[in-house]
C-alpha cells in the first residue's frame, strides 16, 4: 500500500496550499452545503425576511385562531351589523350578520391558507414527478406526457378551475382537487425543462457509467439539482392559488357559509360595499397582503439560489 500521505508528500505533488484550507487536527471540514448557502443569503435579504415574517405571523395566527379570537366568529348580532372600523367593541368592524371581523379574518386565515397552499403542495409532488420523469427519460415518454400536459395547459387557469369545480361540486375538498389540476401542468412543465437542462451534463453521464439504474440516478443525482428551481416556482404559485380559491368561494363553488374564508367573505360583504366599503374590502386586503408576501419571499428565494459562489 502507499506510504502515508503527509503534508510534505502532498506539497510535493500539488495538494493545496492556501491559508483558508487550514483545518484543526482530526476534524473534517464540512461545508455549509447548498441549502446552507441559500439560507445564509436569504437571511441577509431584508425584503424576503420581511415577507417571511408576515407569512409566519399569518400562519401562527391561523394555527392559534380558535383560541385567540377575541369573539366568537360565528356569533352574529342583527343589531350590530356593519359597524365601521374603529368601533369600540368591533375594532375592525362587523360583517353583514354582525359578526366580529377580526375574529372572522383570523379564523378565515386558516381556510384561506389551507386552500391556497395545499393544492400547490400536492401539485408540486405530482408535477415534479411527471416533469422529472419526462425530462430525464426523454423520447416517446416525454412526448406523451408533456403533450398531455399541454392539453390542460391550453385552458386559462381560472376557467379550468371553475369548470372543474363546477363539475365536481362545491366544497373545500373539491376546490383543492380542481386547483391541484390547474397547477400540475404548470409545475410539470418547469420540472421538465429544468431536468432536460441537466440531463446532458457530464455528471449525469458519469452516474450512468457507474451502472446506476435510471430511477436511482433520478433520485440521487437529478432531484437535488432540480428541486430548487421547481420549489421556487411553486411558491410563486401560492399567491395565485389563494386568489383562485377566493375566486371559487366568491362564486359559491368553494367554501360554504358560515365558514369564514376570505374569498367567501368578499362575496357576502359585496352588497355592503356602498354602506361600509372599508370593512367590505378587508378580506381582499388580507388576500392581497398574504399573496404579496408569498411572492416576495419566493423572489428572495430565487435570488438567493441564483448567485453562485
Amino acid at each position, binding site marked *: 500500500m502507499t506510504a502515508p500521505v503527509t503534508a510534505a508528500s502532498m506539497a510535493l*505533488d*500539488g495538494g*493545496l*496550499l*492556501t491559508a483558508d484550507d487550514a483545518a484543526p487536527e482530526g476534524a473534517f471540514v464540512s461545508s455549509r452545503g447548498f441549502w446552507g448557502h441559500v439560507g445564509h443569503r436569504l437571511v441577509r435579504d431584508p425584503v424576503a425576511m420581511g415577507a417571511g415574517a408576515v407569512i409566519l405571523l399569518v400562519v401562527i395566527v391561523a394555527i392559534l385562531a380558535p383560541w385567540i379570537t377575541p369573539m366568537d366568529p360565528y356569533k352574529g348580532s342583527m343589531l350590530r351589523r356593519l359597524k365601521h372600523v374603529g368601533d369600540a367593541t368591533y375594532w375592525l368592524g362587523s360583517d353583514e350578520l354582525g359578526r366580529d371581523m377580526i375574529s372572522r379574518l383570523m379564523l378565515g386565515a386558516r381556510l384561506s391558507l389551507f386552500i391556497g397552499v395545499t393544492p400547490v403542495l400536492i401539485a408540486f409532488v405530482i408535477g415534479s414527478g411527471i416533469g422529472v420523469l419526462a425530462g430525464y427519460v426523454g423520447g416517446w415518454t416525454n412526448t406523451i406526457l408533456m403533450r398531455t400536459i399541454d392539453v390542460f395547459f391550453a385552458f386559462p387557469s381560472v376557467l379550468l378551475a371553475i369548470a372543474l369545480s363546477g363539475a365536481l361540486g362545491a366544497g373545500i375538498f373539491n376546490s383543492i382537487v380542481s386547483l391541484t389540476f390547474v397547477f400540475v401542468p404548470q409545475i410539470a412543465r418547469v420540472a421538465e425543462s429544468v431536468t432536460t437542462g441537466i440531463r446532458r451534463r457530464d455528471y449525469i453521464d458519469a452516474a450512468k457509467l457507474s451502472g446506476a439504474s435510471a430511477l436511482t440516478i433520478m433520485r440521487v443525482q437529478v432531484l437535488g439539482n432540480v428541486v430548487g428551481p421547481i420549489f421556487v416556482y411553486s411558491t410563486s404559485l401560492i399567491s395565485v392559488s389563494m386568489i383562485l380559491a377566493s375566486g371559487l368561494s366568491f362564486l359559491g363553488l368553494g367554501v360554504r357559509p358560515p365558514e369564514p374564508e376570505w374569498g367567501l367573505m368578499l362575496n357576502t360583504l359585496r352588497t355592503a360595499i356602498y354602506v361600509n366599503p372599508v370593512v367590505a374590502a378587508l378580506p381582499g386586503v388580507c388576500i392581497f397582503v398574504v399573496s404579496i408576501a408569498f411572492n416576495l419571499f419566493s423572489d428572495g428565494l430565487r435570488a438567493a439560489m441564483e448567485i453562485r459562489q
Partner: protein
Amino acid sequence: MSSSEPAVVLRDLRVAFGKVQVVDGVDLTLERGQAIALIGESGSGKSVTLRAILRLFPEGRSRIEGQILAAGRDVQALTKRQLADFRGGDVSMIFQEPLLAFDPVYTVGRQITEAILRHETISKGEARERALALFERVRIPSPERRLDNYPHEMSGGMRQRAMIALALSCRPQVLLADEPTTALDATVQIQVLLLLRELQRDLGLSIVIVTHDLGAAVEVADRIAVMYAGRIVETGTAHQVVLDPHHPYTIGLLRSRAEGALAKGSRLQTIPGSPPDLANRPPGCPFAPRCFLAEERCRREMPPVAEIAPGHRVACWRTEEAASAYRAGPTPVRAAEPVLA
C-alpha cells in the same frame, strides 16, 4: 505616433477588482513593430493587463492605477469619445472565441465595412474593397463569397481569420491578442500564428499576445514576459527566456512541459502547490511558497527587478542560483546543445 516612440508602455500598472489586487505593478515596454508575449497561468493577471490597455473594465468595479501609453496616447486620459476612436483605430484586439466578437445576425462583410465606416469617411463601395483586401491578406479562400457569410457559416479557423481582418480593418498600430489560438485545432493554430507573424512583418504591426502556451509565444513573439500573481517575474527576448531562464517559475514552467521528460514513463518535474490566493498576498515574493530556492528573505521582501543582461530583467533574489540549477538539470529546449549564457 513617431517611429521612435514605443508602441506600448506600461508603468507600474495596478488593477484591482474590489479587494483583490489582480495586477500588482507591471512595467512593460513594447517597441514599434515588435511582438511581445505575456505568458502565465490562470490568475497571473495577463488577460487583465491586456484589457486594461483598452480600458475594457467597467469604471465602477475596477481600480486602475499607473500609466498606460499605447500608440502614443495616454489611455487613462482619453475621453469616452476619444476612447471609441482609439479602440479599433489605434489599438485593436482579437479574442479566443471569434463567435463572441461577431454579431450572429449580420454577415461578416457587413460588420467589417460598418467598422471601417465608423472610423473613416469613405464610400461604402470603398469600404467593401478594403474588406475584400483584408480577407485576401488574412488568406481566406474565396474572399468575395466569404464576405457574405454569416459567422456561423464559417469554420473555426476561418472565423479567427475573419476576426483578425475585423481587428485590422481600421488600420490600428497595435494589435492585442488574448489567447487567439487556444481554442483552435493544431493544424489551424500554426497557420494563425504564422499569419500573425506575417502581418507583423508586412504591416509593421506591434503585437501583444497573451497565451499560456510557450510554443505559441515563441512562434509569434520576439520578446516574452512571464507573469505570476499579477507581476512580471522575467522578461527578455524569446531566446533569453526560453534558453537561459533565470527565474524559478520560468524554469518550472519549462520543465513541466511534457517534452521536458527525460524518458518516457518517468515523472514530470512539477511546480508544487497551487496558484496563489490573490486576496491574501504575502509580504514577499508571491512565488515563494512554491519555489524550490525560496529562503527567508524571499518570504519577507519583494525582490527587485534586476537586469542581468541587456533587455533581460528578472524579479528574483536568487537569479544566479536559479540559472545554475537550470543548467544542472534537464533543459527541455535544445537539450543536446549547451546552453548559451
